[in-house]
């Protein structure tokens, strides 16, 4: 292309390279086109590969988390049944028969199971551990709250009680015009 030819010529003159080499350096239009296309393709390919890699890593992390959770739950099962047996023997009056003592909290792992490992029965030991298990409530999940860009409390959006509602009614303060006329006629 002409532009390219001119630039090459100028570059050659400025750097005083061998004139013969210059011709060889000119890139014809089709070559350039081919190059551009190949570049696009290579880029797309690269992006696709990156995406795949990321998804792969995400899947691996999920898998690892799942395995961790299962290990914790298995451990909890053992401790739950262990303590249930012990307290049934001790018949503690404060023990509430609440909703399923052995709930598995859907949260991150905690150190509390280790506290149960201490040897020797003592009234104090069973109390706090049972409390922890009892507050392992299974909470109903109602879905992620999509706000479609409006923001929420965590992003510092305007609170709903400060936003005016368009309910279509004119909000007049004080008596209406008709009532005023009636009043003035009295």
């Amino acid at each position, binding site marked *: 292309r002409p532009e390219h030819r001119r630039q090459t010529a100028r570059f050659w003159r400025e750097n005083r390279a061998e004139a013969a080499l210059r011709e060889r350096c000119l890139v014809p239009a089709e070559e350039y086109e081919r190059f551009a296309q190949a570049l696009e393709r290579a880029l797309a390919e690269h992006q696709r590969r990156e995406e795949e890699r990321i998804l792969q890593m995400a899947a691996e992390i999920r898998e690892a988390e799942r395995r961790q959770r299962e290990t914790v739950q298995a451990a909890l099962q053992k401790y739950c049944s262990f303590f249930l047996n012990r307290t049934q023997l001790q018949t503690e009056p404060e023990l509430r028969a609440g*909703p399923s003592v052995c709930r598995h*909290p*859907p*949260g*991150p792992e*905690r150190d*509390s199971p280790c506290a149960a490992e201490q040897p020797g029965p003592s009234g104090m030991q069973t109390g*706090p551990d049972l*409390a*922890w298990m*009892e*507050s*392992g*409530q*299974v*909470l*109903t*999940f*109602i*879905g*992620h*709250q*999509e*706000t479609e860009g*409006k923001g*929420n*409390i*965590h992003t510092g*959006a305007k*609170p*709903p*009680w400060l936003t005016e*509602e368009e*309910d279509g009614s004119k909000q007049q303060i004080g008596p209406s015009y008709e009532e005023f006329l009636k009043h003035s006629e009295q």
Partner: protein
Amino acid sequence: MSFLLPKLTSKREVDQAIKSVAEKVLVLRFGRDNDAVCLQLDDILAKTAHDLSKMAVIYLVDVNSVPVYTQYFDISYIPSTVFFFNGQHMKVDYGSPDHTKFVGSFKTKQDFIDLIEVIYRGAMRGKLIVRSPIDPNNIPKYDLLYQGI
């Protein structure tokens, strides 16, 4: 002696409650009436409401009827309880990931009463965030996912 807690069924009513309750902690329980853990919580709220009537006003809100609020407070688990004082949202550090609301039910009535007292005293001193007096073992645990991360 229990009584039925009043319910708020629209955005307007919730707005009204937030803007009009003065000099008392406003407690809004977001959940569903037929949910198991909500029932537990509602029971505690109902039984303590009378004794706390000088310090707190309690309302129940169904998450389906006020989507604006459900979205604003990012309520993913129910029940979720939000506290206000004089129109200001009160945050509480429970030792859980989210300070903007209490997720789940309280273990005992005393836990709830203690919490209300702490919020009330803090708010009267002008604080916007207070530390929960509840034993962290008694705080329900949950996964905090923000937009699927």
